[in-house]
């Protein structure tokens, strides 16, 4: 390996390590601090599309959304649910009218999300990383 390549790789590593601090807003998925489930993007997607109605340990799950038009909500939808707003809307119509699941309850904003998460052990929601405090536990950094 040439010195030049090493230098390039080092640069890239530094860059990639530094990336989170450059990004303006990062979305994180949060649960109750006592929730011990290990959750990855695949499981969170299934939970948020009501395909899985429980956490991996079998506990019931309650899903929440930020209001429509919220940037964190859009980012979560694009990167975790990977569906456009209209596809997601059709999806929930199918789930709701076939009694398979209900869309997430909409909360007013980050404060209400934190209140809900810290008081409800079944709750799962997402937040802008800057709104996170010790009342919630981060289980996924959305990339």
């Amino acid at each position: 390996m040439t010195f030049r390549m090493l230098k390039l790789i080092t640069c890239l590593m530094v860059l990639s390590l530094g990336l989170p601090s450059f990004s303006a807003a990062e979305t994180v998925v949060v649960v109750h601090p006592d929730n011990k489930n290990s959750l990855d993007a695949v499981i969170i997607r299934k939970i948020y599309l009501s395909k899985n109605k429980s956490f991996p340990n079998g506990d019931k799950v309650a899903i929440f959304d930020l209001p429509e038009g919220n940037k964190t909500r859009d980012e979560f939808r694009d990167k975790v649910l990977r569906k456009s707003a209209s596809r997601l809307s059709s999806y929930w119509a199918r789930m709701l009218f076939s009694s398979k699941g209900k869309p997430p309850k909409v909360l007013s904003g980050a404060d209400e999300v934190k209140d809900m998460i810290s008081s409800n052990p079944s709750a799962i929601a997402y937040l802008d990383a800057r709104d996170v405090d010790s009342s919630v536990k981060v289980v996924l950094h959305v990339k």
Partner: protein
Amino acid sequence: MKTVFRKAAVLAAFSSYLLPLQAAAANSELDVSGFATLAYGKTFSDKEEGTVSSIPQEGEYRDFNKFGLRLDADLEDNLTFTAQIVANGVNDYEPNVDWLFVTYNFMPTLSLSVGKVRMPLYMYSDYLDVSYAYQWISPPQSVYGVPSISSTEGVKLAWTADMGGQWTSEMLLWTGKTQEFEAALGSDLIIENGVGFAWAIERDWLTLRAVYFGGKATADTSAATADLFDGLALIEGNVQQQTADPSYSLNGVREDFEFVEDDAVFMGLGAFMDFEYAFFGAEATMITMDKNVAVGDLKSYYAMAGVRLPGDWSVSLTYSVNDDKANEEVYEDFQTITADHAAIPLFAPDADGNMAPYMLNDTTQATVAHIVQGTVTGIEAQTYEESQTYTLGARWDFHRSAAFKMEYLHQIRDGMNGNTAEISTTDADAFRVALDLVF
């Protein structure tokens, strides 16, 4: 899409005798949701009676309109109640209770529903009325048209499972009795001892599904069979008299025509692939019945491909086929009677008391021949249908809870004339537009 009321608040509006209930139900929730479709359709055909997907030639403003209201009450402690009422333009907007059931959740993944539940015969059965939930204005009629019955009074067990990775599985097992108007028969279809099983596995971009449903089917077809049964009695009487064999009976044939507790089986397979910019779907169904004239061997399928375009538009092309034939066994039975009737030596005592060849009188013979031949071609014609339909459709999600759709349908249909058994091909085109809402 849904409106949540605190039930306590709703109950508080009622008079005070409900107060004890209010205390019990203070934390339960009532969700109200609904849907509507407002549509127009018109068929263009050279033939006077041709229609495509039941769309009339004079244009129809009312028949495809529908409105539904759904109530979901979470009664807590794992018990929920669901009711769905739908008013269809085609039924003069008379409200009909499509769903009415109580569900008990043993665990988040296992539930039992009791009441009037939807039979998941097709991929879109559960939300068949909610046109907003799928690409078309209505699913291909060649597949979804028969059977048109959709619900059953009984119990339904639902089990969902995480299969690891992206995969999930859903199994449905249901049993009950169904009595609903069946469009293809023009009368009520009753299915007793119905047992069905549906299994769907899915991952993010793929859904695969299989379904089996069987039961004892009964329908009132007496108006259609009255003349035939008279004819059969005439044949029997003649043969019994001439052969002096009172045991000669055509009951086997009668049973073919009696639509009473006949074994009926419905099977279906479906697949859907959903990608960011494209989607593909296909479904195939087969109905077989134990020697029944009114229902032959019915096969149908469709395949659909679509693309998502910028600006929340999507365009799709669907090819659907209906291939219905008379039941072979019934047809064979009829060939047997015709042969029987020709082969039986018709001898009768003449004026001198000697046995001599006997001729049916001309009128009787003509009647018998007419009835038998007419019935044989009638059976074929009634159950015979081969049609191919191309549907080019566009959907525009112009609003968060509303979609505008346009469809152009082209159908090539082979029909059989009941008198001449001639097969003729008809081409017809239809156009329809719809506005779908959910709330």
